């Protein structure tokens, strides 16, 4: 169960590229991953062979397009062990979380209720709650972090104690710190304190890198996004427990999601269609299905193991550099492959610009996690992130670029 990176790299066209006369070293998969040829082929085939709209077309092309689309739904559901009728396509994670914000949280929470989240969330899993709070006035509580960037589980009982937490929104894996959160335990604790509490997990950084089992986690909602998991841009997923989805009004409304429209009322369609309004991203859903096939072919456990080893090496390499600090856990058992770091006296922007010269792509900035930046006491970080197509050969250019930036800029 090991991964043959040189062979895998051949599947990803962009990785063959050179920039600034040097080999491209793509260490920004936490922002968006590369897309393998197999995924592009499925989308091209749709556009070139049976480009048409899905559902209820009585002609051959439309049947083929429907097979692609609904077939992909089965693949995504199987990939995450989720019910097919609870597998809803959105344009990205953000829309998936907003769906829950509008059709659940904004319909159910009010004054007296508490929404519990954490200090390490991506804006996608915090701004919808802050925005809803402005209108509805519920309370938001935050699970604090330990020194090394894990959720402070000791603080949780007190936060749940009064039984008023009716919604828990937590990320599975942090996009800045890499931390893997024990969302199964958290969900159980939240429900123990309040049986009516619903739980949403932001799995944007988990599904690409770990084997995720929706049913086993025992959560109500689980959001993720195609472009970070070898899929195309423009498609995301909300997994939901059908019993809960059934009780919710729709979010986006229009064609496809209704059964009947009279001027005095509307009959919503069945799950999952009730939550899929208008013409969907057909090619992209097909591509996401192909991405699930691709990742399954390599094996999610093998990918996790590979990234664990590579992350350990990267942490070692960075630990060996003067003036470099890594944010987040150093134990690779509880972290994924997103590694944020700071270089004393050098602004992340300048690190990123210098790394670009070495062909190394890293992300710099607040990573859409401003509240976490405040907790870390920084304005921005540089972040290298790893995926199945990276290996130890990618580390020397990273180290070289960091050293060059330090020597060039540090005052």
């Amino acid at each position: 169960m090991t991964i043959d990176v040189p062979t895998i790299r051949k599947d990803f066209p962009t990785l063959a590229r050179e920039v600034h006369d040097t080999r491209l070293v793509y260490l920004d998969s936490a922002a968006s991953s590369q897309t393998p040829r197999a995924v592009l082929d499925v989308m091209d085939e749709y556009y070139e062979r049976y480009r048409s709209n899905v559902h209820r077309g009585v002609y051959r092309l439309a049947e083929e397009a429907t097979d692609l689309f609904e077939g992909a739904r089965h693949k995504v559901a199987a990939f995450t062990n989720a019910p097919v009728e609870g597998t809803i396509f959105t344009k990205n994670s953000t829309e998936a979380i907003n769906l829950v914000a509008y059709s659940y949280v904004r319909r159910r929470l009010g004054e007296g209720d508490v929404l519990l989240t954490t200090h390490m969330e991506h804006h996608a899993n915090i701004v919808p709650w802050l925005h809803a709070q402005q209108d509805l006035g519920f309370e938001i509580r935050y699970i604090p972090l330990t020194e090394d960037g894990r959720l402070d589980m000791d603080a949780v009982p007190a936060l749940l104690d009064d039984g008023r937490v009716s919604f828990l929104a937590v990320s599975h894996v942090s996009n800045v710190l890499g931390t893997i959160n024990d969302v199964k335990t958290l969900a159980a604790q939240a429900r123990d304190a309040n049986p009516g509490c619903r739980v949403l997990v932001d799995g944007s950084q988990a599904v690409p890198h770990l084997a995720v089992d929706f049913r086993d986690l025992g959560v109500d909602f689980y959001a993720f996004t195609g472009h970070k998991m070898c899929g195309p841009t423009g498609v995301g997923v909300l997994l939901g427990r059908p019993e809960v989805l059934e009780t919710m009004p729709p979010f986006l409304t229009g064609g496809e999601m209704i059964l009947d429209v009279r001027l005095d009322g509307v009959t919503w369609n069945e799950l999952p269609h009730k939550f899929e309004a208008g013409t969907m991203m057909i090619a992209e859903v097909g591509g996401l299905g192909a991405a699930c096939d691709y990742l399954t072919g390599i094996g999610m456990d093998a990918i996790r193991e590979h990234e664990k080893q590579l992350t350990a090496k990267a942490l070692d390499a960075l630990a060996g550099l003067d003036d470099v600090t890594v944010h987040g856990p150093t134990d690779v058992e509880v972290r994924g492959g997103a590694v944020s770091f700071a270089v004393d006296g050098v602004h992340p922007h300048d690190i990123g610009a210098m790394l670009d010269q070495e062909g190394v792509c890293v992300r710099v900035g607040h990573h859409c996690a401003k509240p976490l930046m405040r907790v870390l006491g920084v304005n921005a970080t540089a972040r290298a992130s790893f995926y199945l197509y990276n290996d130890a050969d990618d580390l020397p250019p990273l180290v070289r670029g960091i050293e060059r930036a330090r020597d060039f800029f540090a005052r």
Partner: protein
Amino acid sequence: MSLEDLYQEIILDHYRKPKNRAPELADEDVHVHHSNPLCGDEMDLRIAVADGKLDGVVFDGEGCSISQASASAMTQAVKGRELDDVLALTEDFRLMMHGDEPSRPDDLQDGIAFQGVAKFPVRVKCALLGWMAVKDAIETYQSGDATHSVTHGE
């Protein structure tokens, strides 16, 4: 599979000369209305029960040839049977529409002609409409009601 296989003679016959198509039924016990708004199909189905058997069944409404012909063939196949037997036969037909071999091909009578519809996913709902309506009518009867209305989705 070609369209000719879909629209077999048996099916066309039922479409052109439907059996038990009527807007009313003497001794009606239950009346159900089923619609498939996505296709624009509407169906009224009425049953009369006697001695635990389906004594009478008629349908009426609008729909494509497959839905009309299938309802017609259904009425012939179910009339006179024990209620529970009709439910079982309905299940057999439903499974056939999902690609299974029917376990009671003879009892389905002309219903067997619709086996090929399974290959045309968009038409499966059409072929099922009448069968789902009779199943619902019996369950409505068994629960003690006289009318019921159902809207089918994807």
